[in-house]
């Protein structure tokens, strides 16, 4: 409802039809925000989907120090996101930041990280991956432990190589969990806000402005609640579809 009204904290709300949507479409930041959000989600999936799975498969084979690995991988998840964002902002500092110091030490070219339009978004994806990987790894580990050992044994007797066993036993057996996590990750990463807000302020040149950040800007910087709600409604329709599929699948499984 609010999406179709012109409202701010002062005047009475009036009905403006699709004007808020039109205003959004004319805003160059609107396109940038959606583009960045999709790129961010895409990159987060490429890194945040394959890496935890590979890591979980690897950890599941190690017979020692299991508790250490689980604690270490989950530690970043427990650190408050604000602290993580501030910490990485400090690491990314092109001057005395840890990352460029490490690159200089290895005699590699340094990067501008979050200060350059080409690397800023990737830098944020790295932070988000570091912070959230632990939960995904633990979920995969639990799923891997549910795979009956006989399947591997039978596959090995049939002469299946290591890779073939991963391809024909591990992956099919964890397919359901993978799908669940994929949907959850899409819904979660599409709503990214804390990292761009703290680390880049949406810049440089709108390179890291996201949809949720733009909603925040419309509502709490421009005080245009109507347009903020119009944008929220778009996000809701888009993500609601993913959530609906997710809920349907979980209920069918249980």
């Amino acid at each position, binding site marked *: 409802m*609010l999406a179709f009204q012109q409202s701010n904290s002062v005047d009475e709300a009036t009905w403006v039809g699709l004007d808020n949507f039109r205003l959004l479409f004319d805003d160059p930041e609107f396109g940038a925000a959606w583009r960045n959000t999709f790129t961010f989600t895409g990159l987060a999936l490429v890194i945040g989907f394959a890496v935890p799975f590979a890591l979980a498969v*690897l950890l599941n*084979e*190690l017979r*020692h120090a299991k508790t*250490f*690995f*689980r*604690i*270490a*991988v*989950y*530690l970043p998840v427990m*650190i*408050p*996101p*604000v*602290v993580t964002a*501030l*910490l990485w*902002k400090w*690491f990314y500092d092109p*001057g*005395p930041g*840890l990352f460029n*110091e490490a690159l200089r*030490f290895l005699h590699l070219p340094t990067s501008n990280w979050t200060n350059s339009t080409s690397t800023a978004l990737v830098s944020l994806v790295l932070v988000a991956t*570091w912070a959230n990987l632990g*939960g995904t790894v*633990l*979920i995969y*580990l*639990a799923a*891997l*432990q*549910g*795979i009956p*050992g006989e399947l*591997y044994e039978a596959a090995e007797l049939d002469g299946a190589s290591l890779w073939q*066993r991963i391809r024909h*036993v591990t992956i099919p057996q964890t397919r359901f*969990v993978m799908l*669940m996590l994929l949907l959850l990750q899409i*819904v979660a990463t599409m*709503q990214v*806000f*804390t990292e761009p*807000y*703290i680390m880049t302020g949406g810049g440089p040149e709108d390179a890291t402005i996201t949809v949720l950040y733009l909603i925040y800007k419309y*509502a709490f910087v421009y005080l245009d609640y109507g347009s*903020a*709600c119009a944008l*929220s409604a778009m*996000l*809701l329709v888009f*993500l*609601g579809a993913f*959530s609906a599929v997710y*809920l349907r699948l979980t*209920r069918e499984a249980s």
Partner: protein
Amino acid sequence: MRTLISSSTLARHRVLYWTVFSGVVAGFVIAFLFPVYWMVVGAAKSAEELVRTPPTLVPSQWHPENYRDAWDTLDLATHLGNTALQAAGAWALQIVFCTLAAYALSRLRPVFGAVILGGILATLMVPASALLVPKYLTIVDVPLVHVNLLNSPLAIWLPAVANAFNLYLLKRFFDQLPSELLEAAEIDGAGAVRRLWHVVLPLSRPVLGVVSIFAVVAVWQDFLWPLLVFFDTDKSPISVALVQFSYDAPVSHVIAGMVIASVPMVALFLVFQRHIIAGIGAGSLKG
């Protein structure tokens, strides 16, 4: 337990196994523990040493008083207290109301129970961020009573209670409790409240623990919502306060503040790590 690679194969390739093992340990230490180490010692460095090139792995001069200075000058006690108050209230209200609602829907089976549950579950489909602005406008002028809850912990507590996920988790747990116990209690003349208190709750410790941890962690970690509802710095939780400090306070103090803000969460994790890790694995598989 048999996994991808059998134990006998591993025994034959002992050198390879230990090489991979050491590699993974080293990788984990660098990737996950080193950043935390860097933060903890960074806060104990002098301002000059923090910007020195190349950086020092171990501070050449320890300044542990940075932590005390940060605590005093940034008034961390107030902000930690605010966060703790917000988390405690959200936890208590969620435990009381989500438990009552879940018990009612699971065991008392009211008329339209299925419709109500469907409505509650439908809210899970709505991404939290899409409701940000409507939620804010609701808190600014609460319907019916017309009070403004900005700067009040109620702004955190009230939305937190409407937690469909925790309610659903509790309801499903209650569904699985053996009916015989509840029926026996009913025959003995125990009313609905007594059955909840003396039969259901004592059996529900594990799920109440999980819900408690979720509730506390969610409030402690949240940033965007408290950023909106606490414009008064004295009332703001540590997460919002830290970001404000990061603009003008000395770097070592901000880093010390970051460490202090993380300590309660990390401590909670280390104490309950067994339950948390088991809960994440089990919860995901059952949805």
